[in-house]
C-alpha cells in the first residue's frame, strides 16, 4: 500500500503563489517556517466542492499537513497537501484594496526569489514575510512603505543590505549624499563612482527609518520622498537579483491611505 509509505509532516506557511494544474488542481508555492520554500499539489481545490481550496489562496497564513512521495526527500520533491487549517487568512483583506494587493504580490515574489533552493529553512525571511503580509492586512501603514521596508529587510537577511549610515566603499561613518547601486549604497564624496545619484538627504533618512522600523518618520514622509526611496530600493534589489521582479512595475503607487 503505497499510501502508507508516504512521509507526512506538518508546518505552518505563508502561501506565496498558486498555479493551475490539470483539470482542477493547483500547485501551491509556500514559504514554510521550518522547511523553507516548498511546492505542493493541492488536488481538486479549483472545484467549488473543495474543502480547503479557499484556505490556499495567496497571502494566507496556514498550517498544513504535507505528504512526500515514498523514498524521496520530503522537501526536494513536489509534495501533496493533505490537510490545511487557516491561521490568519489575509487574502480577503486585500480584495477591496488594489494597492495592497499589488504590494502583497511583490512581497510574495521577492520571498520566492530570495529562496532559490527548495527545502532550505529560512526562518528570518519567513518571519519578515509573515510580518509584512500581516501589516498589509491590518492596513497600519501605506502599502508602499510596508513593501519597501520588507524589501530592505529581506535584502539585509540575504546579505545585500544597502549601506545607509556609512560609505559603502570606505566605511566612513555618517550620512553621505550620493547613492550608488553598484557600490552598494550611500557613498562619500571621495569614493563616489560615476553614475551615482544625489537624492535629497530625507530620502536616505526615510530608508534608514524603514530599516529601523521608525514608523513615525516613515508615515510622516511625503509622496515625493517615498517615490524616490522606492526607486532606490527597487534598483538596489534588481541589481542583486540580476533579473527584475515581474510584479514590481505593477505595484499601484496611488496610496490608499
Amino acid at each position, binding site marked *: 500500500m503505497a499510501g502508507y509509505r508516504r512521509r507526512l509532516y506538518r508546518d505552518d506557511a505563508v502561501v506565496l*503563489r498558486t498555479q493551475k494544474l490539470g483539470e482542477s488542481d493547483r500547485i501551491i508555492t509556500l514559504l514554510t517556517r521550518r522547511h523553507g520554500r516548498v511546492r505542493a499539489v493541492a488536488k481538486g481545490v479549483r472545484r467549488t466542492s473543495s*474543502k480547503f481550496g479557499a484556505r490556499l489562496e495567496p497571502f494566507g497564513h496556514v498550517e498544513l499537513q504535507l505528504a512526500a512521495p515514498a523514498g524521496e526527500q520530503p522537501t526536494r520533491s513536489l509534495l501533496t497537501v493533505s490537510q490545511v487549517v487557516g491561521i490568519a487568512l489575509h487574502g480577503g483583506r486585500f480584495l477591496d484594496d488594489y494597492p495592497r494587493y499589488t504590494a502583497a504580490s511583490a512581497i510574495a515574489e521577492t520571498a520566492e526569489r530570495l529562496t532559490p533552493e527548495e527545502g532550505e529553512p529560512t526562518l528570518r525571511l519567513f518571519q519578515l514575510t509573515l510580518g509584512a503580509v500581516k501589516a498589509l492586512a491590518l492596513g497600519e501603514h501605506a502599502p508602499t512603505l510596508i513593501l519597501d521596508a520588507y524589501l530592505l529587510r529581506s535584502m539585509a537577511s540575504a546579505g545585500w543590505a544597502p549601506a545607509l549610515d556609512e560609505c559603502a566603499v570606505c566605511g566612513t561613518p555618517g550620512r553621505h549624499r550620493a547613492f550608488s547601486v553598484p557600490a552598494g549604497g550611500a557613498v562619500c564624496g571621495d569614493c563616489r563612482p560615476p553614475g551615482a545619484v544625489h537624492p535629497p538627504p530625507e530620502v536616505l533618512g526615510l530608508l534608514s527609518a524603514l530599516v529601523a522600523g521608525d514608523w513615525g518618520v516613515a508615515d510622516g514622509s511625503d509622496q515625493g520622498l517615498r517615490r524616490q526611496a522606492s526607486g532606490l530600493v527597487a534598483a538596489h534589489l534588481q541589481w542583486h537579483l540580476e533579473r527584475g521582479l515581474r510584479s514590481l512595475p*505593477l505595484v499601484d503607487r496611488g496610496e490608499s491611505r
Partner: protein
Amino acid sequence: MYEGAIQDLIDELGRLPGVGPKSAQRIAFHLLSADPVDVNRLATTMRRVKEVVRFCTTCFNVAEEEQCRVCRDTRRSDEVLCVVEEPKDVVAIERTGEFRGRYHVLGGAINPLEGIGPDQLRIRELMARLSAGTVKELILATDPNTEGEATATYLALLVKPMGLTVTRLASGLPVGGDLEYADEITLGRAFVGRRAV
C-alpha cells in the same frame, strides 16, 4: 524511445496541457490502431479549428464569424454587460439560463506574479464599449479567487466614475451541501452577503 513518426506524435501530444509522457504514448498508440476515417476526422477538425475560429471583435469570446453568437443575438439586452475572464466562463453562465445580456471576455485576470497587469487584459476595449453609453449595469463575474477579486476591485474603481451600476456575483454556500462542511471563508462571505427573505 520510438523512431520516426510515432515518436514525433508522442512528442507533439506531450506538449499539450495536462498530457504527460505516458498519456501521450497511450493516445499515440490508440491513434495508430484506430480506424483511419476517425483519425482523419480528428485531424480535419483540429485543422478547421485553427482556420475558422477567431475572437469576436466585440466581446472577444470565441467565434466563427466577425461576431460571436451572443453578440449577433438581437433579442439580448445591450444594457447589461457581464465581464468574465475566459470564453469558458461564458459557456458556464449561459448554462444557467439566467442571463440575457451581453459579455466581455478579459482574457485572464490581473496577476502581478505572472507579470499580467491591466494592460495585458482587454480592459481598454471594455472602457471603449462602456463609453458608448448603452450599458446601464456592469456585472463583474471574474473567478472568486484572489486574482479574480483583485481584477473586479480594479475594474470597479475604474468604472464607478462613469455612473454605472456595478455588481459582483454573490459568493456563498453551494446548493446541496451541508453547512458544517463549508470552509470559514465561504461561510463568512455567505453571512456578509445574506439577503432578506
